[in-house]
């Protein structure tokens, strides 16, 4: 054979279609599962997927696919992968992309696009996906040439999973998936404009160590950044070493053990009295991986007014964005905490401060009145906690049930809590449970949803049934859009404009329609009974709990108020001497 022919042969070996390249790239990235929905523009890709051995979950709506990928990413720490077709397929994932962007979840999303020759001609199922998703992704691409495809996929996985994680979208025109090109996936990623700082600046760490040693009332506010960095052990070690109490944001729950004596609970709008008062009274606030969301800070005027603020965040743009910061530390949470533990400065003298906090904890705990004749939603969450030994993965929608789950399920371990925080997406909980269960097959997954949100994505019951995922779907049914109803009661003179839904479908029959067992409960005793039954079944179960309909989430910081101005706080027990 002539030399030229040998070279041609070698070239042939690596030549393949765009669709095949994508499959090969996903294999190289060790992608375990893809969530998707086929359509015209991604048909060449689905054809190659057919016998590829790659596990693909067909959800019943693209929104279900992307929320499932979010649940998978949250539990596994790996990027969730989604495929949707062009136009309507792509626009159906917009909510999930925004959700993942707000909560910093690593996703790699592939959308089909019409062929390059007709882009811009308003072709069938064409949408400007690049333009639509630009502000709601960490980065996005449109592939214009087959030769770029391997490089783009490699960059996408790199961008999604490094620095502050986030969703990356790749829009692939149909003709690119059928075009042939050379596949080289061994090249490194070269992005001069993207170099996240992961190691802390020593001078700033020094400043924080100094500030701690001089502080009398320090508090750590820990966010999801701790979980993304797998830094729960370090957080615990540091807090114990320095004797500093910890409060969590909604998304950070599980980063610090809820039953630890230094834990004060969740902060913010529906946080504990102690957590919020600690933020109000502290003289040093150490924010680790939280972005000072307005649901945590309340009115900024009254947020940590007496404190020196230190902020550890991998995203420099978060530091000083909402709260002026004295000690900025751009770093991965784990690296910063390791450095802080290593420096072992003189610990703060927090004896008096902790005594004060413990007094608040004892006197103003989370509180509700039990009532055996109905089901109190708080009690329901406590029963689930008890029956799962606090070890289940809990996914939720958004609203009252979400806040009760955050308040009454005690998360002692990381990566057990999957909720839509920043965007507050109804319909998130059920599909997220699918992803979470696939990420951890042995875990008990409980999807706690409201009767409102459940009806936004309940078609994904089909997937749960089909894959026989042993998810327990718990509907906290108050025949209302509970949180909307609560706000209307408190701030709109009980004018319940379109928030009450007295005519709900029969959810038990719905479960039967999807070939899964369904149970209903209306009293506390019944609730316990059906929960026990459900957890004894090794398969999917749907549970419809008719809870006390006019129950409100307390305590609460009204919008516009400072977090020290909570309502619904009741003292319990006597003041100690």
């Amino acid at each position, binding site marked *: 054979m002539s030399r030229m022919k040998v070279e041609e042969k070698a070239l042939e070996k690596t030549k393949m279609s765009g669709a095949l390249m994508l499959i090969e790239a996903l294999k190289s990235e060790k992608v375990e599962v893809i969530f998707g929905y086929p359509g015209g523009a991604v048909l060449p890709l689905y054809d190659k997927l057919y016998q590829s051995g790659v596990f693909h979950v067909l959800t019943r709506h693209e929104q279900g696919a992307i929320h499932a990928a979010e649940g998978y990413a949250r539990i596994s720490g790996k990027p969730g992968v989604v495929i949707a077709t062009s136009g309507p397929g792509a626009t159906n994932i917009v909510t999930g992309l925004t959700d993942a962007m707000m909560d910093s979840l690593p996703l790699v999303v592939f959308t089909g696009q019409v062929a390059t020759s007709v882009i811009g001609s308003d072709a069938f199922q064409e949408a400007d996906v690049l333009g639509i998703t*630009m*502000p709601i992704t960490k980065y996005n691409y449109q592939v*214009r040439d087959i030769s770029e495809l391997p490089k783009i996929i490699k960059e996408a996985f790199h961008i999604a999973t490094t620095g502050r994680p986030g969703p990356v979208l790749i829009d692939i025109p149909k003709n690119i998936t059928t075009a042939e090109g050379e596949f080289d996936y061994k090249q490194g990623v070269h992005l001069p404009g*993207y170099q996240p700082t992961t190691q802390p*600046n020593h001078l700033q760490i020094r400043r924080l160590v100094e500030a701690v040693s001089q502080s009398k009332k320090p508090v750590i506010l820990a966010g999801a950044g701790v979980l993304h960095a797998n830094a729960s052990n370090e957080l615990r070690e540091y807090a114990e070493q320095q004797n500093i109490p910890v409060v969590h944001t909604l998304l950070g729950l599980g980063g610090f053990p809820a039953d630890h004596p230094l834990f004060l609970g969740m902060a913010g709008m529906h946080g504990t009295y102690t957590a919020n008062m600690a933020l109000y009274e502290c003289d040093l606030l150490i924010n680790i991986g939280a972005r000072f969301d307005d649901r945590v800070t309340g009115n900024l005027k009254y947020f940590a007014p007496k404190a020196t603020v230190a902020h550890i965040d991998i995203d*420099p*743009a978060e530091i*000083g964005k909402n709260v002026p910061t004295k000690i900025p530390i*751009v770093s991965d949470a784990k690296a910063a905490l390791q450095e802080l533990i290593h420096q072992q400065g003189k610990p703060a003298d927090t004896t008096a401060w902790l005594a004060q906090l413990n007094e608040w904890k004892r006197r103003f705990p989370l509180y509700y009145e039990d009532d055996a004749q109905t089901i109190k939603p708080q009690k329901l969450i406590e029963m689930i906690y008890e029956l799962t030994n606090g070890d289940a993965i809990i996914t939720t929608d958004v609203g009252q049930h979400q806040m009760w789950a955050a308040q009454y399920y005690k998360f002692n371990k990381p990566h057990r809590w999957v909720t839509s925080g920043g965007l507050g997406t109804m319909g998130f909980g059920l599909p997220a449970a699918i992803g979470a269960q696939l990420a951890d097959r042995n875990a008990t997954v409980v999807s706690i949803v409201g009767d409102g949100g459940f009806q936004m994505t309940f078609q994904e019951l089909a997937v749960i049934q089909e894959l026989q995922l042993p998810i327990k779907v718990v509907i906290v049914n108050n025949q209302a859009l509970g949180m909307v109803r609560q706000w209307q009661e408190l701030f709109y003179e009980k004018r319940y404009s379109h928030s009450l839904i007295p005519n709900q479908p029969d959810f038990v029959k719905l479960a039967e329609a999807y070939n899964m067992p369904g149970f209903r409960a209306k009293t506390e005793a019944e609730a316990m009974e059906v929960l026990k039954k459900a957890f004894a079944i090794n398969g999917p179960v749907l549970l419809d709990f008719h809870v006390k309909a006019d129950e409100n989430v307390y305590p609460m910081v009204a919008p516009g108020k400072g977090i020290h101005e909570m309502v619904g706080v009741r003292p319990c027990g006597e003041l100690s001497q």
Partner: protein
Amino acid sequence: MRRIITMTVNNRPGVLNRITGLFTKRHYNIESITVGHTEVEGISRMTFVVNVEDERTAEQIIKQLNKQIDVLKVNDITNQAIVARELALVKVSVTPALRQEIYTLIEPFRASIVDVSKDSLVIQVTGESEKVEALIELLRPYGIKEVARTGTTAFTRGSQKTAAMHKTAFII
């Protein structure tokens, strides 16, 4: 507070959209943007003039720009010795009788006439925004038919150290 921010970016499709989208999303007020190639192939330079309320907003804008993957370097050059220029083309209604007057008027501005017709003139002027503004005001009484302005483009003077903010060593 008027700020002049310059940056170098990858010359990729959609980059300008990405940057202006960021400004829109975060409610930053842009006065002008200019974009053009640099001496390096594949890298463009943008000059922004923005109006911000305070230092904190300016800092946040720079951080958000730095966060963009296609952005290589950002500089706030407002308080440095800079060369800033804008170009404007002004079409003025002028009868032949008034032409000489216009010539005399624009001369101190080192502006030039780039097109003449029987009832109008096109004047080209370059300089800092204030100078361009001043000339336009002087020409206004004659009857301005059209104005086309480029917005400011700028960089720092060669004879000073630039306090460049590199992305990789970005510490507040």
